[in-house]
């Protein structure tokens, strides 16, 4: 008793420590271990436990979230297993009911485990690889496949079956019983009839209540953890999606490896290859992409081999173990799964050959996209860093441009919706009211009419302000120089203008520059406390400054489109910083779309000088139509 007490205390302390260290996620391990208890020691049960262990150690939060799900799965599995265990309360019901439906085997017939009745022979190779052996009192079932029957080696020994190899040479060897049987498959014997043997303590007594408790607990807890699990998985899914997009051909390796499972059968080495494929896809996506066409080519060659071999073999050439020749090829050749096709006849073999052609064609199509592209990139020198920088800048500025355009559209939509549209609705309602009131009370109607007129004025005003924000009329009429002049007129500060712009710029550049000047001016008026502002706008045929990014502007060596330089200087308190506040940063982004740059010199105490440079061409001065 004392020893038990100490042991329990020790166990509890260990458990408490583990829980403290790894949290609820550590519960995942015993739950996974249940699979071992239920199904025995298998590769997959061990893998499950190992997976649970690694999750609990490295991803404790995920493991904790998965615990309720694992409970549900373990509970449900436990119930299913219990239903199949003879003698357990659940299985008793199942087996007695199935007993009633199944036909009793007639003398001379034997029931194979899946309920089919077959004629027993000395050795029978039935369709679908079903085998029945003429051993009294025994009904046997074997997995699908074609088997050779080996007589029992001694009295009371079970008969043995072994897989028929694919070609005649091997068959001959097998018939001579030479060497250990390769690919020997386990034969499962099942006794039929009411099973009386009592189930073990674990299966019979403990399993069902434990499974029910786990199921209940799991179902109760699952909704709580599902939320966090879904949140976590959203990020994971996004990462996965990005990965897929970047390495779309490499990702193909996993499905291709799965096809390999069907082509070469589920064996340790094929399963190992699938796992390896997953690892390669994650770690070396480029290698994975290169492996896809190679793997496809191997499958294709194998498929061609199957197609050719089945055409070359004749069933009649073989004598069955009972004496007469085999009736069809399936009795001689091992039926093979090849992709979507189960090859058990010449026709199916041809179909498999066609499938192999598809694989090969797909592989060939992928070669230039994977191996070819990678080889090319190995021989082509690294891209010009300046060019790469330019591309990166362009990509970034394009993103900014799209963002800006989108938010601008949204603003316009909102302004229209809340402004002019709403006012027009009010106008319509007012006019309708007037229609009604006019006969009865013309005076009140008159008041409404003048109200409607006011509303229409306000709608016009809204629209006017909106258009001014989109593309100011003077800018549209006369271009940047005059627009800045008009801007200066509308500003309360005295502004000196020094504008030398003998022509028009392109509309987008003009607009970006206008709003840049407007922003700089607004800053000067609002924040700087300046007394006067000086604006200088000049266009020179050749660029004045190189870009701060190191690369010169395209064609910016004097023969280029030229450079627009804008300076907004004030005598205020300074301290303007594009990094703070979105105004100047937005201007910088907008100018960046045109490869333009913005420089701010604004020491505390002033003065502030904002300089902008945009490489752009100047069109010939617009000639007046009159």
């Amino acid at each position: 008793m004392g020893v038990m007490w100490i042991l329990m205390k020790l166990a509890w302390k260990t458990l408490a420590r583990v829980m403290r260290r790894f949290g609820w996620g550590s519960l995942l391990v015993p739950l996974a271990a249940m699979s071992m208890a239920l199904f025995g020691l298998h590769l997959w049960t061990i893998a499950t436990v190992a997976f649970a262990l690694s999750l609990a150690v490295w991803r404790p939060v995920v493991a904790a979230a998965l615990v309720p799900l694992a409970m549900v799965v373990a509970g449900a599995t436990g119930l299913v297993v219990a239903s199949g265990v003879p003698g357990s309360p659940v299985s008793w019901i199942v087996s007695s009911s199935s007993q009633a439906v199944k036909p009793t085997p007639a003398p001379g017939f034997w029931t194979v485990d899946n309920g089919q009745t077959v004629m027993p022979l000395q050795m029978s190779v039935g369709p679908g690889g079903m085998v029945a052996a003429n051993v009294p009192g025994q009904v046997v079932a074997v997995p699908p496949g074609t088997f050779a029957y080996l007589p029992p080696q001694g009295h009371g020994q079970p008969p043995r079956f072994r897989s028929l190899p694919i070609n005649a040479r091997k068959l001959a060897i097998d018939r001579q019983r030479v060497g250990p049987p390769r690919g020997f498959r386990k034969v499962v014997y099942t006794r039929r009839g009411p099973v009386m043997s009592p189930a073990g303590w674990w299966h019979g007594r403990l399993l069902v209540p434990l499974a029910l408790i786990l199921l209940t607990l799991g179902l109760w807890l699952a909704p709580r953890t599902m939320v966090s699990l879904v949140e976590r998985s959203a990020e994971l899914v996004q990462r996965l999606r990005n990965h897929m997009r970047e390495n779309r051909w490499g990702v193909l390796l996993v499905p291709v490896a799965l096809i390999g499972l069907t082509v070469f059968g589920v064996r340790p080495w094929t399963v190992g290859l699938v796992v390896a494929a997953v690892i390669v896809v994650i770690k070396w996506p480029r290698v994975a992409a290169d492996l896809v066409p190679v793997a496809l080519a191997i499958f294709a060659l194998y498929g061609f081999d199957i197609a050719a071999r089945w055409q070359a073999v004749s069933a009649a050439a073989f004598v069955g173990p009972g004496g007469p020749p085999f009736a069809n090829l399936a009795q001689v050749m091992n039926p093979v799964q090849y992709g979507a096709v189960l090859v058990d006849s010449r026709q199916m073999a041809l179909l498999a050959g066609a499938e192999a052609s598809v694989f090969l064609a797909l592989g060939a199509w992928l070669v230039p996209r994977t191996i070819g592209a990678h080889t090319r990139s190995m021989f082509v020198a690294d891209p010009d860093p300046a060019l790469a920088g330019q591309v990166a800048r362009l990509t970034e500025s394009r993103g900014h441009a799209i963002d800006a355009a989108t938010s601008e559209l949204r603003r316009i939509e909102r302004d229209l919706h809340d402004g002019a549209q709403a006012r027009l609705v009010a106008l319509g309602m007012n006019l309708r009211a007037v229609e009604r009131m006019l006969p009865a009370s013309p005076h009140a109607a008159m008041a409404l009419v003048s109200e409607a007129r006011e509303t229409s004025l306000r709608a016009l005003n809204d629209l006017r302000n909106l258009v001014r924000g989109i593309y100011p009329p003077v800018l549209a009429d006369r271009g940047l120089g005059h627009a800045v002049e008009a801007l200066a007129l509308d500003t309360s500060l005295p502004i000196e203008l020094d504008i030398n712009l003998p022509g028009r710029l392109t509309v987008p550049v003009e607009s970006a520059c206008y709003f840049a000047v407007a922003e700089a001016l607004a800053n000067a008026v609002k924040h700087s406390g300046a007394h006067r502002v000086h604006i200088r706008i000049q266009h020179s045929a050749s660029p004045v400054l190189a870009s701060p990014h190191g690369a010169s502007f395209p064609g910016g060596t004097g023969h280029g489109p030229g450079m627009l330089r804008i300076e907004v200087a004030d005598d205020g308190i300074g301290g303007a910083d594009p990094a703070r506040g979105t105004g100047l940063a937005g201007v910088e982004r907008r100018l960046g779309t045109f490869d333009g740059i913005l420089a701010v010199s604004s020491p505390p105490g002033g003065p502030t000088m904002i300089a902008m440079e945009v490489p752009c061409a100047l069109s010939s001065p617009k000639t007046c139509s009159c």
Partner: protein
Amino acid sequence: MRVVVAEDLFLLRDGLTRLLAAHEFEIAAAVDTAPRLLAALLEQRPDVAVVDVRMPPGFADDGLQAALAARRQVPGLPVLLLSQYVEQLYAREMLADQAGAVGYLLKDRVFNDDQFVDAVRTVAGGGTVMDPEVVTKLLGRRSHDEPITRLSPRELEVLELMAEGRSNAAVAQRLFITEKAVGKHTTSIFTKLGLTPSEDDNRRVLAVLAYLNA
């Protein structure tokens, strides 16, 4: 009174000619492009022209340019500009020749046909009419000016109305005061702003606008 109407949108042109015809104006010509406007102004020599700023072929300030060109050839040719927007820059260009007989109004002002027709007649009579929005902007620009801050609220109101081109009588009617009181206010304003007083309404408006525009 003969009037030339220049407006490229048919609906508005039609509306304007109807409105003016209903107030006993004679429509000398209704044109839809800037070159036609210039031709009409020079051939017809109307008593007044009502001109949209934005017109074909450039769809920029073509109407304004045509009007300015016509006034260069025929000094003092009365022109009332209409626009969806009012820009100080354009107002300044219109007023630059100091000849008067110019107006610059938002198209919205057409809604009040009495006031609009009054404005057309004022311009035809050599007066100056500025949209309240222009005047507000002018005053806003000058809001930090020392002399303007010395004006009383009432004087500011009078200044605003005067800048819009209203006569003493119209200002008095608008503010519900006597013409004599308006006269007193104007004298005070002119003194405070340091302008030479003038008995002529139009001279006075131009002086005020010139002051605000400077």
